């Protein structure tokens, strides 16, 4: 396995090395300030991505879409070759690319890409110094780091069916109408195999894709062709439907044959099917999703295996017909995911359409990621399966009995929901579990149980968020700012949906009444053909009215939207109509028109002020914490200001000449203390702001961002130790830092006790529930998500088949395996070997296993 790991790591490193910019700088580049001052000329503008392949062809094949998304139109870039370098154009280039990234994010996000991050870092390279009247030149390079490449790489190996399995994709992300994905593989029963999966998108009303897949080995093959469609529902319990019709044909070895036997016993199958699958929308709080599916299928099951007479009611060849149905559920709790399914199949007799047998299946799976160390989660996958066939009448085809092995068999083959229909054991080649040593024949079982355990932990990782910025104050500040905006927007939506807020909306009609009154007066003034100066004032009033009406119209169009509260507040604080009306009144001679305009203005201002007061009351009831409890904790955090300022001051005023390590630590302390200091609310902040800022300061953002005050104190203590132990100890500064850090820690404990007593307003409670996915996503992205990782894998499997008492199938089979896993974003490639620990008779010593799993960390 060490061999595997080394090779895998080498592969990833080769990508990283290729990705590094060529070291072709002719001179060391001065900083941007100097480049601007010395009027360097831009020789080229490049956009680079961290993941590229050494072949243009491979890049085109794998990343053409990605490159299209990342490469800006050179003509549209604010910074161009031959221009004199300026810091402003250097920034504008980055801003332009950021805009493209923002737009790309909107398009790329989909159920299979739930989160996307893009980092743009501009740099200058390949400078040539100015000489003899020639300007210096510089290459401007924008490095764009996104999570896209990893996702695109993962999707290369994903089939249409896989995608739906993990994501319930609402739309194909494919650009083209035709997609084909070739593959090579190996399994112990079939040997080396190759094939392809392809799909072609249609515009037909019921079916949107033609799908095909084929795999061929030395003496076996499998192939399918189907038409499929899907539909999303925006309302009701069920959100996603898929259906398909198709045909599958296969010829596969069964029993103790295969591989090196040209005279192997084979199972030939041909099946026509009609299938339906549906999934519910996520039901909070555990994001529980219900699924059901069904199929009607018919065809042939033909085998050349001889059926011993000791196994009655089974024929080697016969017609197959069945109705299948299943129910399943999946739900998540933190980093734990559970799935459970039950399947029922009613099969016909091989010689008539009468009911011949009933097959029942249970499949339970548990997936856990234990994140003791960031980016190195211990992954535990556990599966349990059970199956039973009740013979009702007549004979059933051999191919419908249970045969196990190291290739997963699904109840409804090709379905987007996994329900295993046979025992899975990695040490036994495909279909080989089912051989009866006592009968010397492949007879399959009529009952089974199987259990599987897979444990893996990364030993090498390439995190999506580089370690050097993981604990950067700017990152902390940005994440918290984003979280606050998400929470506030959600709270605004809660307010807008409330009955109290909706009761305010008649104010729109009251405002409109006043605007109409303005219209009436303005019409009478215009009728008298006023001077141009008055006409200008009239136009100002009309513009203000139009602005008010537009805003009122937006509110009416979306009365419960996340921006509606803000729009109403904007309308209520907009005095432009009143101001313009009064200005017009001032320009008119004394008289009824002037009086009317002023009266309307006063009424309008009063209506706005009254409604604004009511809106404040709605805010106070729904999104503001109770004042007395908030005041106590507010006072607590005010006490942190002095020690944080002191720490900031010490870190900012260390003498020149301190070691690089101390200087770097001081820089971090300064940034952390500044961030914490700026999170201390002021008395004029709203109760909502106070509480959110105190949360950041005292509680932090889960494990993603620590409590900011505590972070500053801990970093100050680290700096204090460095100062104490430096060659020229700075004892006074160290002691002061320790004292202030302790004061902060004591203050945090007090504040935390009082903060726990603050009753959270209903709007905040609702918003925290509604937006938990955002914080969970950030947590996974920052603490767990890897662009690439390599893990050793340990597996253990146990399986048992039962058949007719005369057909002993070897009792309990167990296997243990070791292997390696290469993870590329969401795709896990696992390769290993499993040894059979018991009952090797008929199953061999062990088998190579390989799997490709799509793991959606962000679901």
């Amino acid at each position, binding site marked *: 396995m060490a061999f595997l790991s080394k090779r895998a790591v080498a592969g990833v490193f080769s990508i990283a090395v290729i990705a590094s910019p060529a070291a072709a700088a002719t001179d060391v580049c001065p*900083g*941007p300030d100097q480049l601007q001052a010395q009027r360097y000329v831009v020789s080229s503008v490049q956009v680079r991505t961290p993941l590229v392949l050494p072949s243009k062809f491979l890049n085109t094949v794998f990343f053409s879409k990605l490159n299209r998304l990342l490469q800006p139109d050179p003509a549209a870039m604010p910074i161009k070759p031959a221009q004199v370098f300026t*810091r402003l154009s250097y*920034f504008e280039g*980055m*801003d332009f*690319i*950021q805009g493209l990234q*923002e737009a790309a*994010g*909107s398009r*790329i*996000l*989909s*159920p299979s*890409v*739930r*989160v996307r991050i*893009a*980092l*743009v*870092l*501009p740099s200058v390279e390949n400078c040539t110094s100015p000489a003899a009247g020639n300007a210096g030149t510089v290459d401007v390079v924008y490095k764009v780091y996104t999570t896209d490449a990893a996702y695109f790489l993962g999707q290369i190996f994903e089939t249409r069916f896989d995608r739906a399995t993990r994501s319930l994709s*609402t739309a194909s992300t494919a650009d083209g109408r035709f997609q084909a994905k070739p593959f090579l593989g190996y399994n112990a029963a079939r040997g080396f195999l190759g094939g392809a999966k392809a799909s072609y998108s249609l515009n037909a009303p019921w079916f949107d894709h033609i799908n095909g897949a084929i795999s061929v080995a030395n003496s076996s093959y499998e192939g399918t062709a189907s038409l499929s469609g899907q539909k999303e529902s*925006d309302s009701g319990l069920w959100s996603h439907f898929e259906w398909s019709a198709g045909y599958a044909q296969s010829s596969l070895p069964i029993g103790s044959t295969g591989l090196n036997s040209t005279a192997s016993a084979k199972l030939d199958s041909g099946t026509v099917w009609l299938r339906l699958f549906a999934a519910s*929308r*996520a039901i909070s709080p555990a*994001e529980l999703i219900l699924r059901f599916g069904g199929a009607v299928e018919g065809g042939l099951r033909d085998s050349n295996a001889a059926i011993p007479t000791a196994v009655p009611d089974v024929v080697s060849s016969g017609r197959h017909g069945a109705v299948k149905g299943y129910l399943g559920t999946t739900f998540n709790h933190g980093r734990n995911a559970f799935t459970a399914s039950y399947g029922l199949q009613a099969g016909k007799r091989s010689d008539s359409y009468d009911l011949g047998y009933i097959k029942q299946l249970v499949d339970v799976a548990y997936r856990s990621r234990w994140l003791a160390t960031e980016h190195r989660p211990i992954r535990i996958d556990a599966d349990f399966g059970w199956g039973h066939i009740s013979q009702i009448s007549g004979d059933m085809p051999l191919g419908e009995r249970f045969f196990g092995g190291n290739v997963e068999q699904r109840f409804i083959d090709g379905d987007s929901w996994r329900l295993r229909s046979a025992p899975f054991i990695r040490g036994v080649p495909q279909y080989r579990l089912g051989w009866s040593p006592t009968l010397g024949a492949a007879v399959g079982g009529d009952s089974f149980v199987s259990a599987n355990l897979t444990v893996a932990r990364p030993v090498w990782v390439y995190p999506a968020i580089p370690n050097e910025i993981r604990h950067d104050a*700017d990152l902390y*500040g*940005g994440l918290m*700012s*984003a979280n606050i*905006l*998400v929470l506030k*927007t959600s709270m605004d939506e809660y307010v807008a949906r409330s009955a109290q807020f909706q009761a305010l909306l008649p104010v729109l009609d009251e405002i409109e009444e006043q605007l109409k009154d303005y219209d009436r007066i303005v019409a009478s003034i215009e009728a008298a053909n006023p001077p141009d100066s008055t006409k200008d004032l009239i136009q100002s009033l009309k*513009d203000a009215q139009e602005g008010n009406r537009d805003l009122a119209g937006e509110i009416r169009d*979306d009365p419960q*939207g*996340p*921006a509606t509260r*803000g*729009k109403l*507040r904007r309308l209520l604080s907009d005095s432009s109509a009143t101001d313009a009306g009064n200005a017009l009144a001032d320009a008119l001679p004394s008289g009824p028109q002037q009086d009317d305009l002023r009266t309307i203005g006063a009424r309008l201002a009063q209506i706005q002020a009254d409604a604004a007061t009511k809106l404040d009351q709605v805010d106070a009831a729904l999104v503001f914490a109770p004042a007395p409890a908030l005041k106590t904790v507010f006072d607590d955090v005010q006490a942190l200001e002095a020690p944080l300022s002191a720490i900031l001051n010490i870190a*900012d*005023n*260390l*003498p*020149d000449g*301190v070691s690089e390590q101390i*200087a770097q630590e*001081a*820089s971090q302390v300064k940034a952390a203390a*500044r*961030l914490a200091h*700026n*999170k201390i609310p002021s008395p004029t902040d709203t109760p909502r702001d106070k509480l959110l*800022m105190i949360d950041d300061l005292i509680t932090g953002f889960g494990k993603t961002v620590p409590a900011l005050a505590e972070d500053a104190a801990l970093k100050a203590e680290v700096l204090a130790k460095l100062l104490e132990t430096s060659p020229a100890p700075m004892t006074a500064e160290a002691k002061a830092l320790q004292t202030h850090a302790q004061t902060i820690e004591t203050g945090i404990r007090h504040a935390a006790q009082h903060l726990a007593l603050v009753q959270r307003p209903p709007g905040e409670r609702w918003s925290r529930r509604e937006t938990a996915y*955002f914080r969970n996503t950030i947590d996974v992205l920052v603490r767990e998500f890897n662009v690439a990782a390599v893990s050793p894998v340990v597996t253990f499997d146990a399986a048992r088949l039962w058949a007719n008492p005369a057909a002993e199938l070897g009792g309990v089979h167990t296997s243990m395996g070791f292997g390696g896993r290469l993870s590329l974003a969401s795709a896990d490639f696992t390769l290993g070997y499993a040894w059979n620990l018991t009952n090797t008779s008929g199953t061999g010593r062990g088998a190579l296993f390989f799997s490709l799993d799509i793991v959606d960390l962000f*679901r």
Partner: protein
Amino acid sequence: MANAAAKKCKEFSVTLAVLAPDNKRQISFAMERGCIDDNTPFFILIFVLRDKTADGFQDRVKLKVTVGPQDNDKAQKLMDAGLKDTQLDFLQGPVTSAAKKLPPGTTTDKITEKKVAQLLTK
């Protein structure tokens, strides 16, 4: 005395986009740091909330605010503390109203810029 390791201003931009579990809402947040010179940063915050409609995802809330380079401490404070309610109301109120009155294609407007600068005092 200035710290020996005082960092020079460096430009960077980070954009984060998240799709809600119901697949009907996107949240995008971006933060950019620009530099007038090595010692004078300014910041841009961009927040977009999109909802799915029959025509695809449409913007429902969009905020773009530039803070700094004047009054650097206050700009840094805004970046650290996040947009406060008074700042959000001001941004969505007078600033948006002023910006909406500008003719299409306007890239600079002193009155609007002055209003945005007032954000730091809110």
